[in-house]
């Protein structure tokens, strides 16, 4: 679905990607993690064809995104971090913009709006940022495009809205779709994604399925110094003890959904310990 081969991309003199290659497949919801300025948004823009690589090849849904052909654009929906909505209401958005997306599902759109409690009467100019964000998420999900890109979708959402967002995404069928969610809020991705990709130092640091992580790692809180000494990564917990990432013992098959924040920190600070544990 998405193939980036030896991509190089710079913003002026600032190198974002050097020899960056990644392959992403349908049937997955990817959580894209990385530091500020590591190139998460750049990655989404490259995939959407909004910026062009200086070197390398990009193939998305058998199209070259740069060409921005209609057949490509109708299969991709990007929810940017900062977005623009026309000054219409949710009903008119459906009426005027849904026809551009062949798989658009009006019932889903109305259902998502209902779950998110987005008012149907006022135009977007009269709505709060959070309400507009929810509306654009509903529209993007209902487009049913094979590729859905979300850049910091939970920014601007309150606690209730975040749980509504999780509810919607957990119900979503993504068998023939690829959804990529870039976020600083690793906690917001827990329970939703089935793969984690971490971008760091102008390249892809990690691309791992949640099942693999669950099978190979444990995320536990302990005061036992012997266990802490064996850990891959550990940090003090405010309430006492240490929060650790530990190699999974053989007698436990699955642990709970991995703590993505701890996983991210382990990948950034102790990659030499983490990756062998994942490849076990």
């Amino acid at each position, binding site marked *: 679905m998405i193939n980036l081969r030896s991509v190089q991309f710079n913003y002026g003199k600032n190198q974002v990607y050097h020899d960056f290659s990644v392959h992403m497949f349908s049937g997955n919801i990817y959580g894209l993690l990385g530091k500020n300025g590591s190139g998460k948004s750049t990655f989404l*823009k490259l995939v*959407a064809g*909004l*910026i*062009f690589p200086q070197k390398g090849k990009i193939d998305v849904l058998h199209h070259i995104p740069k060409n*921005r*052909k*209609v*057949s490509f*654009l*109708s299969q*991709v*929906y*990007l929810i*940017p971090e*900062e*977005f*623009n*909505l*026309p*000054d*219409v209401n949710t009903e*008119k958005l459906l009426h*005027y*913009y849904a*026809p*551009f*997306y062949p798989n658009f599902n009006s019932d889903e759109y109305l259902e998502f709006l209902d779950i998110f409690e987005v008012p149907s009467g006022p135009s977007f100019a009269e709505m709060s940022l959070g309400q507009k964000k929810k509306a654009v998420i509903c529209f993007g999900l209902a487009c049913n495009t094979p590729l859905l890109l979300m850049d910091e979708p939970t920014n601007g959402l309150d606690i209730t809205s975040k749980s509504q967002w999780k509810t919607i995404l957990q119900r979503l069928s993504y068998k023939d779709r690829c959804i990529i969610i870039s976020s600083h809020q690793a906690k917001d991705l827990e329970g939703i994604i089935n793969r984690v990709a971490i971008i760091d130092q102008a390249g892809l640091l990690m691309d791992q399925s949640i099942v693999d992580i669950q099978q190979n790692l444990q995320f536990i809180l302990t005061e036992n110094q012997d266990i802490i000494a064996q850990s891959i990564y550990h940090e003090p917990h405010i309430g006492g003890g240490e929060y650790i990432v530990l190699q999974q013992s053989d007698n436990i098959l699955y642990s709970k959904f991995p703590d993505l924040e701890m996983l991210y920190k382990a990948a950034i600070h102790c990659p030499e310990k983490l990756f062998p544990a994942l490849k076990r």
Partner: protein
Amino acid sequence: MLFSFSRFQNYIRSHWAEYNKRYLLFTLAMVSIMLFAAICMLLLDGNNAIDEKVQYICYFFGLFVAGCIFSGTFLSALQDKDRAITYLMLPASTLEKLLCALLFTIPVFIVVYHFTFFSIDYLFVAIVNIINDSNIIAHQDDAIKVISILNPSNTAYSGPSGKVIFNLFLGFIAAQSFFFLGGAYFQRFAFVKTLLSGFIVILFFSMFSTLCFRNAIYNGGFDAVHNYYSTEPIYNSSYYLVSIVEHFFKYAIALLLYITAYWHIKEREI
């Protein structure tokens, strides 16, 4: 597919839904400025304020100014990162987006401008004629008539010929295309930068044409005509050279600028 009629229809509908308030405000601003200008002229120059010549000048001056502003700001979405993403990601081809722009900036704009101008013009010509009727010096034959753009010979004032009006409209479209290209090319302050570029282009062209004039003498671009009284030839500009330049500026330049704008939209990065 580069063009689909149903998609183009959808695109125009969505464009209208997004921009109708903006276009209405633009029209209201045009009406306000025209009314203000007409009132000022009436107060300053009384019964001679809106004769046919002034009407023609006002019509074309307003057409060029308002048209260039409208065309130069049509792609304002491209200057704003968030709006540009929406604009570029909407599944319509660049050709359809360009055709929609052409539709709104040329025929729709001309019709709206024409209607707006003449609504005010009819009103103020009537007012001036009422003032003149009450004036003892004025005669019935002196009544000011509303100008006609489609049939200019209808007016008492021997104003511009149909050919001149046609050429002015071609010039208007060329100016529109230049400002449209500026909107597509410049990423920030597009209108101001286009305006400055326009002055630079005019300056450059004036200098270039002077140089071209000199070079053309040596390169056969001019015809030598022998005078009966003198052995020295008199140089006339070649008919073909003049014809090519004239036709280029009349018909081809706008097309070239719109094609360039098309590629700039297509290659635009955010």
